[in-house]
């Protein structure tokens, strides 16, 4: 097997998730009842045999460091290779924005790593992908860069769109076009040689350019053989609060649940040692995802309950996402609501959001 390293680039626009990213980087946003966004891309990399993963962080990464710990859950707690969290480590000077500068700051990490090939990805694209197949495709096409995309006909204004010729060679790249003609939506995953990535980063930096896609790829499109690899599986692109809510609800389809959590490999996450979920005598729960540590004695429909949620008698919950350790006291009613961690809803309280505009209650709020 080829020796490949992974780069997870957390220099992502996070503001779009509003309150959920107030105090955490996008990769640390909780999803799917017990995961954080980064778990998917990191598990995909580990499942493809990658043993050296560098995580480039920019800000608000404390929750992420807590979550990743020593990397043990991903079997990346190694003496040689392993998991590297690479903070910007500023010293006095002003910060630029953009991923080029962050990548450049850790040039020595690339130099030190033994691997020749890099998979670089963000955390906003939730999927269960077999990177080995994409790597084989990359070799077969003898590509300089392979970009991974999926077919999607949604609004394109938050997506990067590829134009491809009949041989799957990328002939054009548009970042966030208002009206895209094509439906080849970038999954923001790139395979290339480490050497080429380092050259592109260096080239951009010395020209004062800041963005890997706009400056590194688009401006060099004519000199590079960039190929598109189409991923046909389920993809949840978490680029807005509405998308977060919509894709979360999609997990209540057992086929998507099966595909996302079991298809090409398992999804690892931090372990909490919670007891199994406990259902009381008055529990009425249907069409729900429920994590361990929950204690439920009320009615819950079409919802996702993270670890350690407590739901008392007489409570009625519909179409909501309740994050870790939320506590819902007797006779409260919630619909179309997202509760961040450690929220307490007191007795008899009613909250109503809309699927198109879910109501988000911030971390540790008591309402």
């Amino acid at each position, binding site marked *: 097997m080829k020796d490949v390293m992974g780069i997870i680039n957390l220099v992502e626009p996070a503001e779009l998730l509003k309150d959920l990213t107030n105090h955490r980087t996008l990769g640390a946003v909780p999803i*799917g*009842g*017990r995961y954080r966004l980064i778990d998917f891309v990191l598990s995909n990399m580990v499942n493809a045999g990658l043993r050296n993963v560098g995580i480039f962080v920019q800000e608000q990464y404390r929750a992420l460091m807590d979550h990743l710990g020593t990397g*043990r859950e991903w079997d990346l707690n190694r003496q040689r290779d392993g998991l590297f969290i690479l903070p910007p480590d500023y010293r006095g000077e002003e910060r630029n924005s953009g991923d080029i500068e962050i990548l450049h700051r850790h040039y020595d990490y690339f130099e030190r790593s033994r691997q020749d090939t890099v998979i670089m990805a963000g955390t906003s694209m939730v999927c269960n992908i077999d990177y080995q197949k994409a790597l084989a495709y990359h070799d077969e096409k003898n590509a300089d860069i392979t970009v991974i995309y999926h077919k999607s006909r949604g609004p394109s204004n938050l997506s990067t769109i590829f134009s491809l010729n009949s041989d799957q060679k990328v002939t054009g790249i548009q970042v966030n076009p208002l009206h895209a003609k094509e439906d080849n939506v970038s999954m923001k995953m790139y395979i290339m040689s480490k050497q080429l990535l380092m050259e592109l980063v260096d080239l951009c930096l010395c020209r004062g350019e800041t963005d890997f896609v706009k400056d590194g790829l688009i401006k060099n499109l004519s000199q590079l053989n960039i190929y598109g690899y189409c991923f046909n599986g389920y993809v949840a692109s978490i680029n807005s609060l509405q998308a977060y809510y919509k894709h979360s609800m999609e997990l*209540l389809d*057992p086929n998507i*649940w099966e595909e*996302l*959590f079991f298809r090409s490999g*398992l*999804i*690892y996450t931090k*372990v*909490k*040692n*919670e*007891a*199994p*979920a*406990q*259902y*009381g*005598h*008055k*529990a*009425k*729960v*249907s*069409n*729900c*995802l*429920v*994590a*361990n*540590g929950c*204690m439920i004695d009320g009615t819950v429909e079409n919802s*996702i*309950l*993270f670890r350690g949620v407590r739901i008392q008698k007489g409570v009625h919950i519909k179409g909501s996402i309740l994050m870790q350790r939320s506590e819902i006291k007797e006779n409260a009613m919630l619909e179309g609501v997202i509760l961040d961690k450690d929220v307490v809803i007191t007795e008899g309280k009613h909250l109503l959001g809309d699927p198109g505009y879910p109501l988000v209650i911030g971390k540790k709020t008591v309402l």
Partner: protein
Amino acid sequence: MMNKACIAMILAGGQGSRLGVLTKRVAKPAVPFGGKYRIIDFTLSNCANSGLDTVGVLTQYQPLALNTYIGIGSSWDLDRKHGGVTVLPPFVRENGGEWYKGTANAVYQNIDFIEAHNPEHVLILSGDHIYKMDYAAMLTYHKQRQARATIAVIQVPWEEASRFGIMNVDDQNKIVEFDEKPANPRSNLASMGVYIFNWPILKQYLEADEADPSSSNDFGKNVIPKMLASENDLYAYPYSGYWKDVGTLDSLWEANMDLLAEKPSLDLHERNWRIYSVNPTQPPHFLADQSIIQDSLINEGCIVYGLVDHSVIFPGVRIGKNSKIHDSVLMPNVTIGENVIVSKAIIGSNAIIEEDCHIGQGDPGDEQELTVVAEGAHIKSRSKIATTAQV
């Protein structure tokens, strides 16, 4: 290496033959319990939560599942540089090898291991009891009384006392007599099989016990009575709380059902005394539109389309449409087809029950005997399994 004030030795070698088909391929401490755990998790978690970081696990019977499960101990935070968990199987010396003959002999054969840590005290534990206990508090008690040995005891119902090793104590909790399974018990204080010894004293008794050809080399039968005969300062440490020896299929089933009370006396949610276990990599469980769940424990990775009532469901279980599970324990990765009824049963790991089966003797609520389906069994559709015999 640092001098370890106290190290723990967990006796996990027993076959547990009264658990029948459940221990055909695994030792009793490795039997699944409580929707998530294996029995030994409770003892290991007690050690971790009590701040003990050097633990020997004495194995002998079918140790592979247990070895693989305990692994490097990281699930219990016992993957330490010095100490941590060490699995101690029997081994060969210059003059040949010897299997463990009894609980005392098992510890005797590992005197080298214990001496390597140079402890003041040794805590002897069983790997097959369900309870939460702070051994550090018991050690403090032991030290305060300057005891030679301290034995944890629990009050059992008088009518059951003759099944246990019974302590008769004075008003200072000093042990004056020990009866192993007495016909006419004079006390209802049963030994929990949790002992703290001063190591130099224990070593001496282990050596004497080994030299005695008539001994069956057992703590309860031999070492403790001998100690009582010649030492003064043996104390009972009274424990009150949930404690269960899951030595039979019925008691294993009961202990599982105990968890389903509205306020179970064994609280698995306590944040300051977590029960650690190896966590399988599974997503949250999925309950379908038509599912009905009550008075139950359900772990991650399950998909439920049917009804689950007063049951304990381990990870990875699939329950088909219109199936009904009552008063039962479904171990990991059991698959239940459609229109199945399961009533007062333990279904072993990876068993497959095809559609339209009826497992169990009668209807829920009836007085029934327990039915047990073996690990990996495959029950064809439209079967009726309703015997006390284990499939």
